[in-house]
């Protein structure tokens, strides 16, 4: 095999590998969208069917007409959400779906680290890892900012 042929084979293998990687990534993206969408839809349908949020929430029309008040009478912590989901409370399900949606980009970058590791693409393992760490740090920062606010 000539050097040229060899480099063509390597090029082709690299392309095939990238094909598999982008397929894995797109499968992850599609499923993360479907799962969070599904959970939110179930929550919304449950709410419309039972007319109950499961919580003492300010009704939407009151909220809109008054131009306030900000209501926090729905679950927005991990513990209260899981507690509500177990009891099949509609708003807890919606919040679970929204939380899954928010976390999905962080899962995406984690998957990218694994993909680049498999491809032995060192610079991009480093880049994706740093992005992952930054995202986790900023989630942590958000809690710190929050504790200052409260």
């Amino acid at each position, binding site marked *: 095999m000539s050097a040229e042929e060899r480099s063509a084979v390597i090029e082709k293998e690299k392309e095939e590998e990238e094909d598999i990687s982008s397929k894995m990534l*797109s499968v992850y993206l599609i499923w993360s969208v479907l799962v969070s969408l599904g959970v939110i839809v179930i929550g919304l349908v449950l709410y419309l069917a039972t007319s109950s949020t499961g919580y003492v929430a300010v*009704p939407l029309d009151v909220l809109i007409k008054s131009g306030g008040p900000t209501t926090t009478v*729905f679950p*927005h*912590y991990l513990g209260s959400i899981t507690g509500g989901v177990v009891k099949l409370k509609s708003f807890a399900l919606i919040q679970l*779906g929204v939380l899954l949606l928010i976390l999905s*980009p*962080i899962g*995406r970058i984690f998957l990218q680290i694994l993909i680049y590791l498999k491809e032995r693409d060192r610079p991009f393992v480093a880049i994706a890892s740093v992005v992952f760490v930054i995202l986790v740090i900023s989630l942590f920062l958000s809690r710190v900012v929050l504790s200052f606010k409260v």
Partner: protein
Amino acid sequence: MDLTIYYILLILVAAVFAGIIGSMAGLGGGVLIVPFLTLYFHVPVSLAIGASIISVIATSSGSASAYVKDKISNIRVGTFLVLFTTTGAIAGAFLEHIAPKQIIYIVFGVVLLISIIPLIRKIGEVNQSPTVKNDPIAEKLSLNSQYPNYELNKEMKYNVTGVKSGSAMMFVAGILSGLLGIGSGVFKVIAMDTFMKLPIKVSTTTSNFMIGMTAAASAGIYFFNGDVNPYIAAPVAIGVLIGAVTGARLLVRTRGSTIRIIFAVIIVVVAVEMLLNGLGISP
């Protein structure tokens, strides 16, 4: 209850529209959702911003699921640049008191208006100019790639240049989103189009791939703070996801110049919003 259903449906329809536009122009749709909710519905601003962050992530995940499969967005370029937007966003969160927000809004409103010029000049461009060569960083990280070109009906290779200036611009875009709580899709697209000379569809779709990651960090703040109200978040998330997937299908079959025009119109909207905010005319 009936009124609630009516409101939810209305938000849903608006969200589908925002998702379509956002997924085609490379931004999160917050520029459309926030004024809609605050001006039309008089929803408190903090709740509208919470909804807008959900819209950004939904647009990103919804459209990226199609763009990655169709290999339009450049994942390597996106992942590399996210490094700078996320660090910028953290820096921005700490820089809150560096200058009055009004001045920042006015400065960047004007910057946006100016940045329309190079964008419009390239209307009619079907493919990247052959004079564009990879710069050393792009070469080292093999950022160049290829994408399905609709006008020429085949896979076209393209190079990546101006990685340094593009990255610097991304850092500024990140600072802005940390500082003002706005998504910065417009600045991302401009950086990739004007500085890095990527084809317009690659720029908007790569921006879509990126915005979800930039927003995920700040989304946590709003979510745990209780600013994401299920009444609004549910129709926004459902509508935007449907819109984003639809927009992604449309983009594949749209001419590059059409995307450019849609994007230019959005820039004008965003610039006017920022200028109004800066001048304190916003309600």
